[in-house]
């Protein structure tokens, strides 16, 4: 088989796999007249951006995207901070009870969202947080996965470095901020990308704790728009494209990190 033929085959398969998404992009660019046509055309004759304008103005998709950005940004920053601190303690401080506490961290990985859903909803309601950003952010501020990922990386930093820094009168805090974290940038990137993708794509929890239109994340806002109102599929597909765009960019730029994050539990070594 020639190389060109092989490429043609692999591209064709990529198109089949991505067909639902590509067709969504194509539909989002169709005019109202062309959307009404059946059978649907594969590609718009004259691409227009009307659906995007409508999505951002008629449906408050801009507001939904902003809410999602605030939630995902805060959760990502929070997870990077809490995991860095915890992983640092587990690796560089020799304290009694270290094994027990680390085990307690790992145990949280076994607890699925569904088991904590009802009590967490009741907690958030009791705190008066329903329909606020804290409800979207607080439950996700700590992560055992992130702590574990950073711990594995911190373990590769020679202990002699910590001892030498100590000798030179460098405090633990300064050692963390000026030496450990800069060295750990690849691991931090992996965690950051993973945290952003999973928070941006959340569905069930935001659905429960958000009631008002203005506070909806984009996942909730767009799905409710589709189910409750008679909106055109062109507008919904424009919304889908806008909703997938940030995670698509992060995925394409950080492909290596995504792979590392996803296979951390799957492949040994």
């Amino acid at each position: 088989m020639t190389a060109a033929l092989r490429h043609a085959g692999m591209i064709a398969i990529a198109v089949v796999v991505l067909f639902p998404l590509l067709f969504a992009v194509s539909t989002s660019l169709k005019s109202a007249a062309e959307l009404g046509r059946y059978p649907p055309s594969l590609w718009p004759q004259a691409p227009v951006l009307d659906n995007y304008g409508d999505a951002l103005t008629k449906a408050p998709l801009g507001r939904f995207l902003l809410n999602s950005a605030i939630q995902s940004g805060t959760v990502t920053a929070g997870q990077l901070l809490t995991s860095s601190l915890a992983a640092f303690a587990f690796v560089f401080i020799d304290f009694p009870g270290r094994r027990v506490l680390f085990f307690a961290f790992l145990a949280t990985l076994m607890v699925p969202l569904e088991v904590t859903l009802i009590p967490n909803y009741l907690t958030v309601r009791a705190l008066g947080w329903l329909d606020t950003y804290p409800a979207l952010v607080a439950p996700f501020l700590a992560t055992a996965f992130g702590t574990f990922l950073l711990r594995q990386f911190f373990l590769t930093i020679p202990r002699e470095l910590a001892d030498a820094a100590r000798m030179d009168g460098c405090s633990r805090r300064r050692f963390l901020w000026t030496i450990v974290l800069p060295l750990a940038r690849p691991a931090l990137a992996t965690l950051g990308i993973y945290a952003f993708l999973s928070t941006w794509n959340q569905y069930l929890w935001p659905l429960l704790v958000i009631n008002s239109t203005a506070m909806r994340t984009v996942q909730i806002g767009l799905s409710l728009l589709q189910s409750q109102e008679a909106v055109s599929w062109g507008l919904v597909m424009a919304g889908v494209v806008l909703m997938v765009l940030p995670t698509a960019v992060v995925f394409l730029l950080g492909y290596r990190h995504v792979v590392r994050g996803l296979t951390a539990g799957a492949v040994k070594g």
Partner: protein
Amino acid sequence: MTPRARRELLSALAYLVPSLAAFVLFVFYPLVRNAQLSLYETDPFGGLGLYAGAGNYARLAASPVFLNSLRVSFLFALYTVPAGIVIGLPLALLANRPVRGITIYRTAYSFTIAVSIAAAALIWAWLFDPNVGVLDYVMGLLHVPAVGWLTDPRWALPAVAAATVWKDLGFNVVVLLAALQGVPDDLVEAARIDGAGAWGVFRHVVVPAISPALFFVGVVGTIGVLQSFGQINILTQGGPVESTNVIVYSIFRNAFVNFRFGLAAAQAMVLFGLMLLLTVLQFTVFERWVTYQ
């Protein structure tokens, strides 16, 4: 405890407190609270009423709706997990070939990782649409009579499963590709020299070598689809006639539509038990493989 040990403990706690506080408030306390709720009658605001003992669990065991949701979840896993592997493995094999620009193909084949379940469900809702949906059009071209994808109780679960397989494909490709990259070249070479064809190499060298990853995708995939909610809520709301009422959707309905928190908490405990069982299975089988090799 020596003074030094105490000092180190206090120092460590200062670093651990942010995570610990979040875990106590949002994981450990709710876990205990959920177990407690499952043993009580609850009022519509989630307050504890009379102690019910195993009452909620007994009610579940006798509830046709709950038993149906277990059956639906089991079927849903059966429709999605094997299909995800059967489609994901060839894609991973393609993505593992030494071709120029392979990274582009790898990102394309695993791209659905970036797609949220809501986005996937909305796209498929439109593909399934009885008026403008492209699926009915394609079936018309093939002279296959149209079916009510999301409105026919026989087709709704397979339809939701199709959307789910598509969404999870990216994850399967990434994990299986990572495993394929770990298959030693000399092993493949040796088999070739012994006269094995492409199929023989695949069947007798590659598959055994990646069997832990295949198993991982199977178990993690099953755990994942047992937690499915978004695609159900967007595509079918559990219907038609309960045919897509998976466990998590049924928990959601009991807790946040019918406000029967105690009963929903008991359902969540049952789901938790199922997932623990799968996790234990994964670890024990994994252990066996690792020591065997």
